[in-house]
C-alpha cells in the first residue's frame, strides 16, 4: 500500500489542498474560488471535490462535505448531531466579567453612550467588551451622537429582564454621585483624567 502511494495521483494532492482550504474557511467556497486559490483548472477542482465527497461522507467520517447554495463546506455528520448540540449549548453563565460589568454599568447609567466615551470613563479600550455585550443582546446600537459621529449604545429589554428591572428607573440609586446623568458623566470623566 505505502509503495503504491509513492506514485501519487496528482489529484490526491489537490484534494488534500482543498480539504485544507475547507477546514480553515469561515464561509462556503465556490468552485471558482477554489480554482483561483489553488491555481488549478475548474475541471480538476471538480474531480478533487468528487474524491473528497467520497472520503468525507455520512457513515464514513464525522466530517462531511456539503454542497450548499454558496459553495462547498465541511459540516458535522448527522449521527453526531446530539453531541454537537451539547457542545454548542453553553451552560448558563453565572456572572459577567469585570470588563463587561463596568461597560454595562456605564451604558445603563449614562446611555446612550459611545465607545470612545466608555473608554474614557474606564481608562481602557472598550471595543471587545462592547462587542461581547452586543452579541449577548444586553446592549444595542442607538444611533449616532451626530451625523458621522460615533455609534452610541443603550441597554435592551433583555438587559432589564436579566437584571430583574421593570424599567430603567429601577436601577439602584447613585444619589451620592450626583443624580443627573450629565453631572455623573462629567464627574466620571474628571476622575478618569486625573493623574494617579
Amino acid at each position, binding site marked *: 500500500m505505502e509503495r503504491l502511494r509513492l506514485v501519487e495521483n496528482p489529484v490526491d494532492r489537490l484534494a488534500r489542498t482543498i480539504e485544507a482550504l475547507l*477546514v480553515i474557511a469561515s464561509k*462556503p467556497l465556490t468552485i471558482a474560488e477554489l480554482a483561483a486559490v489553488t491555481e488549478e483548472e475548474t475541471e480538476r477542482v471538480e474531480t478533487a471535490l468528487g474524491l473528497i465527497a467520497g472520503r468525507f461522507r455520512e457513515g464514513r467520517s464525522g466530517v462531511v462535505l*456539503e454542497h450548499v447554495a454558496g459553495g462547498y*463546506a465541511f459540516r458535522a455528520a448527522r449521527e453526531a448531531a446530539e453531541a454537537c448540540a451539547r457542545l454548542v449549548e453553553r451552560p448558563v*453563565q453565572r456572572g459577567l466579567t469585570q470588563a463587561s460589568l463596568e461597560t*454595562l454599568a456605564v451604558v445603563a447609567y449614562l446611555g446612550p453612550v459611545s465607545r470612545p466615551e466608555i473608554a474614557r470613563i474606564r*481608562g481602557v479600550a472598550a471595543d471587545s467588551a462592547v462587542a461581547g455585550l452586543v452579541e*449577548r443582546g444586553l446592549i444595542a446600537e442607538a444611533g449616532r451622537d451626530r451625523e458621522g459621529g460615533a455609534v452610541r449604545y443603550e441597554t435592551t429589554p433583555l438587559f432589564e429582564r436579566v437584571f430583574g428591572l421593570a424599567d430603567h428607573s429601577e436601577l439602584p440609586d*447613585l444619589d451620592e454621585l450626583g443624580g443627573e446623568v450629565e453631572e455623573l458623566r462629567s464627574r466620571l470623566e474628571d*476622575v478618569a483624567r486625573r493623574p494617579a
Partner: protein
Amino acid sequence: MAVAVRELPLDLDAFEGPFDLLLTLVLREELELRDVDVAEIVLAFVDSRLERGDLEACGEFLVLVAALLELKARGLFPGEELDLEGLDPEDAAEELAERLAAYRRFRAAAGWLEERLAAESDRYFRLGAAPLAPVPARPLAQQDPVQLAVALRALAAARPEPSLRHLVLSYPPLARFLDRFRSLLASRGRFAFDNEVDRMTRVEQIVAFLALLELRKRNEARIAQAGPFEPITVWNASAS
C-alpha cells in the same frame, strides 16, 4: 578618548527604550567600553525621546542612570562624595543591573516568540465559527442590579489607570539646562549650582546635574565643591 555618539553605527530610533539601548551597548563585545561613552549615548537617546514626548516610563531609568553617572562623577571630585538626594550609587548600579537583567530575559523571550512564529508560518487554522456550525447560545443567569451601581461607584471613586504622561511634562530636555548654564557662564562667568536648582523637582535637579557634567566634559565649565554636601560652584572654563 571617548567616541562621539554620531560616529557610532547606531540608529537610536531603532531601540525599543532606554533598557534596550543600554543593554545592547553594555553587551556589545566588539566595542571596547573604554572607548565609548555609553552614558553619553544613553543620555542622547533619553534626551531625544523626551523631546518627542514619547518616553513616559523612563523616569525611573533616568534616576538610575544619573546615580550610575554619579559613580563616574566621583572621578571629577576625587575623594569626595556627591549626593543625589540619598540615592546610593552602589544601590543604583545594583538596581539597574537587576532591571537590565530582567529586561534582557524578556527581550530574549520576545526573540523566542518571533522565531516560533516564523516556524509556525505554514500552520493555518480557522478563526471564528465554522460555516455550517449551529449558532451558539450563551444564556446568562439572573443578575443583581446592585452590581452595576458597585461597578460605577468604583469607577467614580478611583482613577482606573495611572497615567505616566504627567511625568513627561516634568522632564525638561537636557539641552534646556545646557543653554541656561552656558548663558549664565557667559554673562556672569560663574554661578552657584545649588541656587539654580533649589526650587526644582528632584528629576529636574538630576537632569540639571547631568547637564553640568556634560559642560565639564566638553571643557566649557570647571566645577568645585568644598566638601561633601557643600555647594557646587561652576566657572566658565575659558574665562579663568
